[in-house]
Structure formats: structure tokens, C-alpha cells
């Protein structure tokens, strides 16, 4: 039974100058579960897209059943019995489970949804799925939808299953159920690749672990020979010195006190779970965590864009000395309270800026309400635009160019420039250097440090641990919507943070199981 299902040899995939995968080797046997471990942007999803025919590798070979093959489309992948379960489900909400399962299939013979339901029921009982084939997708929970996706690939006869972060959206109980099913599929001889960040899941479930770091293949170990320390070190690597400046905080005062906030998704998954922390003036608080662990919800809750189910967000106004609870206030109400809050959201062109508008018009987003006139005042924004273009060296033909036409780094300069121009007392920046080149990144770090020196309380959500460790005074780690630890940026180690990122509260799960 232990023959090789799929083997990758020296897979390299480039996007322009960026190398997403470099010389990756991977072997999965039938009846085996392999975990693919790596930080954000380490190239896991790219690699899986190579296997499922969405991308074509620039170098390297894919070997299936002992023969080199070329997978040019998702359809080819089907033919090689590869099935991928994406993080974002591809289902038609209005259809039943059975209808979704056979969608696009060209089976011979009469179209008969009843026999499909029967076959679905067979697969379900074989692996222990609990699903009603006639239930509509829009009535389903996230975990049921995921089940439909898995049955969909099994129905198509997949022998190699790839699951992209399947537990990210599941509750601990649902996760356990999923793992039972995956084990049963392994015992049935299927080869399973699961992408995940959660170390205990890796140790709990898989037979082998392959680790990627910054697109490079680090190695594969047998789970039985690994522990959390070994895996963390493989995943985060050695600390790299970046020489980012870090001034000492001067006279830090509590600026924002967040206490016990909770936030529930529509599906009932906890996006923020009893989060408490304090942000102080004159310091940079880093937030580390796997993407999608609640960072966005947290920042949006502070900015008045996310409804909360509990807790409080107290802002201490340094000017008036008063304190305000920002919870459940709209962004406008927060501004009217005199809270000088600036927010650089993750989605720069979808939220922070309007892509089709000029640099000047984007400056107006924050300031257009000023004054009693019914007309907008363009003079101030124009000056501000020119000032930002000059001071931050934004490469743009002129201030009337739509920001959509600027490069990523320049877009970020425009956004950050606007946000700090209103002399905030609290500045939140989500992934401000994502997609930026080295020079632009250092410019952004300098800007954040300038704000810090001015006594601004800065929240910096980052993904590169080296940067977080060099830039931030304190680092708060968030995992599955919970704060897993707050460490001192000056003496924490990379492994320590990496471990906190991949840790989820196993105690809680155990108590659930009982």
C-alpha cells in the first residue's frame, strides 16, 4: 500500500522577479497524511496550485504513478485524480449538496439526482460524513460546506486530496470530526496533503511534515521524530538582523485600553475571543499572527467598522484628559468625539483609498466634511497631496493621477501620508509594507518611528517576524481570535513568537472533548 502517489522534484515557480517556490521536493505516498507547514507567504498555496493545475511550474517535474506528467488545467488534475479543497468554497448557495457535487460533471447516462444522492450517502457512510444531500448550501454551516467540498472531490474519484487550511474556519469540535474523517480516508489508501499553521494539528494528524520558508523548501521530517521546537525552528529559521531603528519610548501613557472584546462571525465562529490589551503613547505595539487570526476584525472594531458582542474599548484623550468607550460607535461618531484615530487598512485600494480617484481626491476622503460650505474645498487637499508627493518621494506623474495607476509602494505612501497628516494620537497600520520593496519598507518604518517619537500610540500588524522583533516595543501574538501572549520586542526570540503564533489553547479543546 505504501507506494508513492505523487512526487515533486525541484519545483520552481516565479512571478516576475518574485520567486514563490524554489526547488521544492515533496513525496506523498498512498495511505499517508502530509502536512505542509510554513509562515504566510512561504509559498504553500502556490505550490498546491501548481499541483492542481492552476499554475504551471517554471522548472521541475511532477511525477504521478511513476511517470512524469504535465498538469495544465484543473481538468487535467481531475484526470490524475487530484482534488483540491480551497479555503474559499466554490459552491452555488442556492443548490443542494448533491447538485453542487455533480455540477459540471459529464457522467454518461440519464441525469438522476436521486442516484447521485444515493452515491453521496454511500461515500458519507464510508468515511463518516454527516451530510444531507438534499440540504441547500445557504442553510449549511461552514463545516457542512467544507464537507460538501470534500465529498465533491471524492465523488470525482480523487485519490490525492489537498486541503488548504481546512481548520481555519472550524470550531475545535468540527476540527476533531474532520481529522477523524481524514484518518479514515488515509486508512482507505488516499494520499492527503493538508496545509496548516497549527503545530499541534500537525503533530496530532500527520505522518510527515514538509516545511517551506520564504518559498524555499526546508525539508521533510517524520512526525514521530518531530516536536514543536524542531518544527518552529524549521518554519521561522534563524533571526536575521535588519538594522531597523528602535527609539526608546518616552513617558508612555495608556492611550487605548481594550478589555474582553468578543466578536462572532455570522456562522457562529469566534473571530475575537476575550481580547484584552493596552496601547501606550510613544510606543509601537506589534501584532503578530497567522493571517486571518482576527487581526482585521480587531483593528476594524477599534475603528468603528465591526460590531462587537462584548467588551469595551476605552480611549484616553491626552488633550482633554477624558475617557471614551469607542465600542459600537460609527467612524463618524468616533471622529466627532475628538479621537484622533488614523487607520491604514490592509485593503489599501478597496478600503483606504478609491483607486479611480486622483491623489488629491483621495486626500479629501478624510477632510472633505470640513467647513460649513456645501462645496468641497480642494485647496488644502491639493497642498497636502503635493506635500506628501514631495516629502515621501511618491513616484507619480502628477497629483491628479488616479492612485490605481501608482505602484504598490507609492499607493502605500499616499495612504500612510494622508493618515499621519491629521496628526493622530493613535495610528493603526495593517501590513503596511506588504508588497513593498526594501527602500519603501524602510521609509515606512521611519515614518512609524517618527510618529512614535511624537508620542503617538502605534499599532503595527505585521507578518515578517524579523521586522516585528526589530521595530516593535512589545509584540502581541494573536491566534484564532485569542491573545496567545504579549512579549517584549527587545528580548523575545523568533522561536518564542513563532511558537505563540502556532499555538492554540489545547486545554480548552480537551475540556470540550470531555
Amino acid at each position: 500500500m505504501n507506494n508513492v502517489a505523487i512526487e515533486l522534484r525541484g519545483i520552481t515557480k516565479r512571478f516576475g522577479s518574485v520567486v514563490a517556490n524554489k526547488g521544492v521536493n515533496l513525496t506523498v505516498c498512498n495511505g499517508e497524511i502530509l502536512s505542509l507547514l510554513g509562515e504566510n507567504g512561504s509559498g504553500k498555496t502556490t505550490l498546491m496550485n501548481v499541483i492542481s493545475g492552476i499554475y504551471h511550474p517554471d522548472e521541475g517535474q511532477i511525477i504521478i504513478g511513476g511517470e512524469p506528467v504535465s498538469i495544465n488545467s484543473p481538468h487535467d488534475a481531475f484526470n490524475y485524480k487530484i482534488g483540491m479543497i480551497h479555503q474559499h468554497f466554490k459552491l452555488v448557495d442556492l443548490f443542494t449538496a448533491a447538485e453542487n457535487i455533480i455540477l459540471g460533471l459529464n457522467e454518461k447516462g440519464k441525469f438522476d439526482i436521486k442516484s447521485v444522492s444515493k452515491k453521496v450517502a454511500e461515500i458519507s457512510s464510508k468515511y463518516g460524513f454527516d451530510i444531507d444531500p438534499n440540504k441547500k448550501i445557504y442553510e449549511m454551516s461552514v463545516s457542512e460546506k467544507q464537507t460538501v467540498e470534500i465529498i465533491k472531490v471524492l465523488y470525482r474519484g480523487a485519490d490525492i486530496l489537498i486541503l488548504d487550511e481546512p481548520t481555519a474556519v472550524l470550531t475545535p469540535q468540527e476540527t476533531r470530526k474532520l481529522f477523524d474523517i481524514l484518518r479514515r480516508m488515509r486508512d482507505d489508501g488516499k494520499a492527503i496533503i493538508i496545509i496548516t499553521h497549527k503545530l499541534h494539528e500537525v503533530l496530532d494528524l500527520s505522518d510527515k511534515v514538509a516545511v517551506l520558508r520564504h518559498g524555499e523548501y526546508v525539508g521533510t521530517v517524520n512526525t514521530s521524530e518531530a516536536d514543536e521546537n524542531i518544527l518552529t525552528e524549521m518554519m521561522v529559521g534563524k533571526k536575521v538582523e535588519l538594522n531597523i531603528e528602535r527609539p526608546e519610548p518616552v513617558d508612555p501613557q495608556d492611550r487605548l485600553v481594550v478589555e474582553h472584546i468578543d466578536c462572532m462571525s455570522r456562522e457562529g465562529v469566534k473571530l475575537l475571543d476575550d481580547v484584552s490589551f493596552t496601547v501606550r503613547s510613544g510606543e509601537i505595539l506589534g501584532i503578530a499572527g497567522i493571517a486571518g487570526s482576527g487581526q482585521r476584525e480587531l483593528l476594524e472594531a477599534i475603528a468603528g467598522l465591526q460590531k462587537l458582542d462584548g467588551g469595551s474599548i476605552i480611549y484616553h484623550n491626552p488633550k482633554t484628559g477624558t475617557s471614551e468607550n469607542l465600542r459600537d460607535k460609527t467612524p463618524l461618531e468616533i471622529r466627532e468625539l475628538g479621537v484622533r484615530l488614523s487607520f491604514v487598512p490592509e485593503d489599501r485600494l478597496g478600503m483606504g483609498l478609491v483607486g479611480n480617484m486622483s491623489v488629491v481626491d483621495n486626500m479629501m476622503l478624510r477632510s472633505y466634511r470640513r467647513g460649513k460650505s456645501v462645496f468641497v474645498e480642494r485647496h488644502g487637499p491639493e497642498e497636502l497631496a503635493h506635500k506628501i508627493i514631495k516629502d515621501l518621494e511618491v513616484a507619480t506623474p502628477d497629483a491628479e493621477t488616479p492612485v490605481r495607476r501608482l505602484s504598490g509602494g507609492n499607493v502605500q505612501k499616499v495612504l500612510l501620508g494622508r493618515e499621519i497628516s491629521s496628526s493622530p494620537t493613535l495610528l493603526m497600520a495593517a501590513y503596511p509594507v506588504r508588497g513593498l520593496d526594501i527602500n519603501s519598507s524602510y521609509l515606512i518604518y521611519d515614518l512609524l518611528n517618527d510618529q512614535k517619537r511624537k508620542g503617538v500610540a502605534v499599532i503595527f500588524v505585521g507578518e515578517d517576524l524579523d521586522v516585528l522583533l526589530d521595530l516593535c516595543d512589545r509584540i502581541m501574538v494573536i491566534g484564532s481570535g485569542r491573545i496567545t501572549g504579549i512579549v517584549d520586542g527587545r528580548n523575545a526570540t523568533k522561536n518564542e513568537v513563532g511558537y505563540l503564533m502556532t499555538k492554540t489553547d489545547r486545554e480548552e479543546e480537551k475540556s470540550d472533548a470531555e
Partner: protein
Amino acid sequence: MRNNHKTHKEPLVYITKRGELPKLKAMMIKAIVILVGILFCALVTILLTSENPLKVFKAMFTGSFGSPRKVWNLFQASAILLGISLAVTPAFKMRFWNTGAEGQVLIGMLATITCMFYIGDALPSWLLIIVSLFASIIAGAVWAGIPGYFKAIWNTNETLFTLMMNYVAAQLVSLLIMYWVPSGSMVLGLVNSSTQNGWFPTIFGQKYLLNIIIVALLTAAVYVYLKKSKQGYEIAVVGESENTARYIGINVKKVIIRTVLISGALCGVMGWILAAGTDHSINSSAVGGNGFTAIMVSWMSKFNPITMIFSSILVCFLQKGAGEIASNLGLNSSVGEVLTGIMILFIVSSDFFVNYSIHFRKKERKEKQE
């Protein structure tokens, strides 16, 4: 199945979204497409009439510019079309697909005619005109506001809703005409024809000059509103990205309802101009499809009021010119609609050549980074 080594067939033509084109190049592409459209229209006309092309073009010009009266008619028709196009624009800019301009204008007309009918003798003409204006504005705003309100609270499909409202308005007009004209002839005739109470005054001996002046003012007003006012800015932000609007604290629902009311009110104003300044009467098809044509004019002008001036003149020129050809040759006057339809299709499709580039014979497999 495992030994599937079939090479992938590459498509001959494939399409990618292109980056921003320089303005000049984009305008060139548009100009070429419009030119091709005009040539195509000419070809169609020649095929339909088997006439000498030069003669056809000449007829088109005499149809629009042949006499001072024809020029006035052209500008009057263009003014009405332009005015309605301006009216639908604020809502469109916000991505609210109002297909109900026809009905909103008609209900505005109805409001004015009702005022003229019932209080025509009680008020001096100038006051009646003003009262009618307010009645029309309210009527138009209500007619658009109903779908707008349901869009905001229940996300009711506004395209279909506003479309249906057109026919409710048309039937309402028929109903009232039935009520007003007991003979059942369905023809209302000129209201207050003897006193001309509530009619727009003639200026410098020109019946339509006031219409044109009002629409000119309206053009300036809409231009300023959209480009310079805070509300216009909010409309642009909501239309581009609701997320950004929320991020900067705009109450999206409020902006939607407010903008739709403004659009409807402007349609009401156009109904007032049509009723008090042009027709002095009403029937269920008094707007004559201008409400629909206006949607296309607004769209193909990219919601720019200045461009709309030219677009509406172009459309009216085509219609008048084609009408002239038809009457010269004893053909049906619908040639105008045919040519308008073709021209709009060409202009609308020109966007594609600006926004996408077409590649023949794919050489290299391109992949996008996520």
C-alpha cells in the same frame, strides 16, 4: 485516464485587461469606433434606401440644420434629452440602475398638467408655473424614492422595480385622461389653450428658448453638484467603493436614498419643462422613450455632464436627420431609432477596446500572481 498527455489547445484569440491607457490614446480609440459607427450607419441607410450616399448625408444635414425652425427643434429635442440624461446621472454614478426615468418624467408632467387643469384659473400664470414646478419635483422624487427606499432597506432589485414604475405612471396618465376627457377619445388637447395659463412665456419670440436656458442652467448645476459639492463627492465614493465609504464614516443608506430622490426630482423638473414649456398636454407616451435614451446617453458620456451635451446633440441629430431621409423618400420615420440604436451600440462597445487588449496567437502562458 492517467496517461493523459494530450497537449493543451491554445486559443487563437485571448483577452486581457489592460492597464491605464494614456488619455489621448483612449480618445483616439473611441473616435475611431465612433467613426466606424457613423460609417456603418451610413451603410445601413444606403442599404435601406439604395440612395446615393452623398444625397443621404445631405438630407441628414438639412433635416437638422435646413432651416432656423429645424435648428430650434434640434436644440429643443437635445435639451430635453440632455436634461433627462443629467437627471439620471447622480443615481447612475452611485451604481443605482434607475431604468425608471421615463416614468419619473411622465409623473412630473402629470403633476404640472394637474396643476394647470385644476388651479389654472385661480393663480396668475407665473405663480402657477412655480407651483407646478414644486408639484413636479415632489412627484418625480416620490416616483424614484419608492424603489430607492426599498433598495436601501431590502435590497430590492432597482432595475426591475423602476422599470415597472414606468408603466404604472403611464397607466395613471391614461386613467386621469379618461377622467378628464369624458368623451373617451383619450386625447386631452392643449390645457388652458385660451388663457395659456401656466405655459412658459416665449422669450425673444422663441417658444423653446426658456426650455433651453433652464436645461443649460441645469447642466451647470449638475456639473457643479457632482464635481464640486460634498454630496457629489460622497456619491462618487459610494459608487466606487462602499467599503471605503464606510471606512470614512459615510452613511451609505442615507446617501443612496438622498441621491435617488435628487435624481427623481430632476426628472420631475424635466417633466415640468415638457408639460409647461413644450407640450401643454399629456398622453401616456408623452416622454417618447427619452427616459430610456437618456440612460444610454448618460452611460456613454461616462456620467460627464459636458460630454452629455455633445452626446444628446449627436443622438438628436441622427434622429432628425433620419427623419428627413425618411420623409424625403416616403419611408417610415423609424430610421431614426434604428440609427440611434446602432450608434449607441458602437459607442458602448468602444469601452471594451479601451479597457481590454486583444492578443492573437498566444505565445507564452501568462500567469497572474495572486
